């Protein structure tokens, strides 16, 4: 029966290849996607509108900020859903795995990690803050920060990592990130603009309208980074222990 599934798959492949014939040549500057007026507008006007050199961050956090807010909400919901599925779900039988990992934390690994984790976290802050000028931004910085906590959990055990970042604090931090994002949007709405129209923030901060967008983008990226950090760590904590938060990798 499973062999029959090859037929629709190959049909889809033939259709896609037939469609690929009509594509523009790979990488040609005359393809419709490259000539589209929207992207030309973005490339040309990011400098004047927001004074942010990184076009991708500007489009992500300013021109398409609404998308990014709901993407953050999606990440948050995924973390909450994993929590809801796996919390208090383990039975006694599931504690017996095929192979047990009862090793003591190794001295080389722990000492190396002890030196590395502060550097990694500072790098995460750097990636977040420097996202305006170099590749980076809220997501990347948040994920690196979450990965540093996972590194602590991997080299010692999960209790050590949870002592530094307990799961209830995780959810609070994740919620705070979204509230920060939506709060900036609402603040600009109360000041007379539209939702997430950062230029209106120039009315209360002593900066120009473009720099208001610049700084509000930083605030928004911080919100995104907070949520992503907390959710990545809580995802790992719940998945590796089936919600019981004991044992684990």
């Amino acid at each position, binding site marked *: 029966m499973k062999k029959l599934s090859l037929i629709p798959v190959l049909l889809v492949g033939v259709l896609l290849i037939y469609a690929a014939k009509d594509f523009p040549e790979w990488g040609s500057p005359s393809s419709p996607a490259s000539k589209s007026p929207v992207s030309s507008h973005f490339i040309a006007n990011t400098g*004047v509108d927001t004074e942010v050199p990184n076009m991708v961050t500007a489009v992500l956090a300013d021109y398409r900020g609404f998308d990014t807010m709901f993407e953050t909400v999606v990440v948050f919901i995924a973390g909450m859903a994993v929590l809801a599925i796996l919390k208090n779900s383990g039975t006694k039988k599931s504690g017996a795995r095929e192979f047990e990992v009862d090793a003591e934390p190794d001295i080389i690994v722990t000492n190396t990690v002890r030196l590395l984790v502060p550097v990694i976290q500072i790098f995460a802050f750097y990636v977040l803050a420097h996202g305006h000028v170099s590749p980076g931004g809220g997501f990347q910085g948040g994920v690196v920060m979450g990965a540093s906590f996972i590194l602590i959990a991997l080299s010692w055990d999960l209790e050590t990592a949870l002592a530094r970042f307990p799961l209830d604090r995780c959810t609070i931090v994740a919620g705070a990130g979204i509230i920060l994002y939506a709060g900036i949007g609402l603040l600009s709405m109360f000041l007379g603009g539209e939702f997430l129209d950062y230029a209106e923030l120039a009315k209360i901060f002593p900066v120009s309208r473009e720099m208001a967008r610049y700084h509000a983008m930083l605030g928004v990226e911080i919100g995104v980074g907070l949520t992503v950090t907390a959710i990545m760590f809580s995802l790992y904590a719940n998945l590796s222990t089936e919600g019981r938060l004991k044992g684990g990798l």
Partner: protein
Amino acid sequence: MFEDGGIINELFIERLNYLIYVVLLLIGLHAMIAKNNLIKKLIGMSIFQTAIILFYVSVGVKEGATIPIYLPEHDPHGSHATHAEGNQTTEQNHGPVVLEAGLVKGYSNPLPHVLMLTAIVVGVATLGLALALCQRIYQGYGTIEEDELLAQIEKQETRTQPRVVSKESKPKAVAVKKASTAKAKASNTKPKSSAKPTPKKLAPKSQAKSLSSTSKASSSQSASVKSKARRAVAKSTTTSKVKPVTKAKSSAPAKSASVKSKAKRAPAKPKTASKAKPATKTKSTTNPKSSTTPKKSTSAKARPRTPKK
């Protein structure tokens, strides 16, 4: 479609990358359909997602264009230093200007990158959720192979479905069977090989008695079920048989809004009492300890998700 030789040149040389993207898409799609293991299906899903992202990003590639970050000479933040000859550096100050069209062509298109950033993050969120579901399935069924899962689900469904026997005893047996299964589900015990419905009157009584737990509620339940079964057996019209069937079925969920008779009310109340206590104790209604209640039973039976002991 089959021009002379042109198709080979077009497809394989100029658009080779698109072909390979299509191959990756097909690999991911086939893995999602045909693989047995759930984790392999998830790997196929991820391959599919990243292949789509690859396709999107490559649509916006401009050959010879640089990354979508402003070069220093277009930097909106003012000055950048240029090193002239003879070790003299001159500073050029310029504010933000709108780039003209010629310069715009030198940058890559940032729009696909933005969309695909969102896609990657949403993809990893979906992957995390799917892995949590896999763990849950493993806790409930003990396996993550699709064929074994389907076999287990079918076995559970056939065990609780009434099977067709002789014609004259069929409605009676169906009513009796449904009453006994409703009671068995409510009292949270294993239905025995009661898949074979017996047209006897004593059968549900003995089944109910043997299956009942030691709680007082279940004994009253068995008494009421007995009476219900007797009522179902005594009545010979189909309409009256429909009513006990529906009564038995609708009394099974703890929130039975349409309580029509006292006998139905009696089992409903002790059932809710007995169900409320374990519900608050375990705090979750999807604990997969017993193998009787299929967690993911797809049949539209009016059965509660009974909490475990």
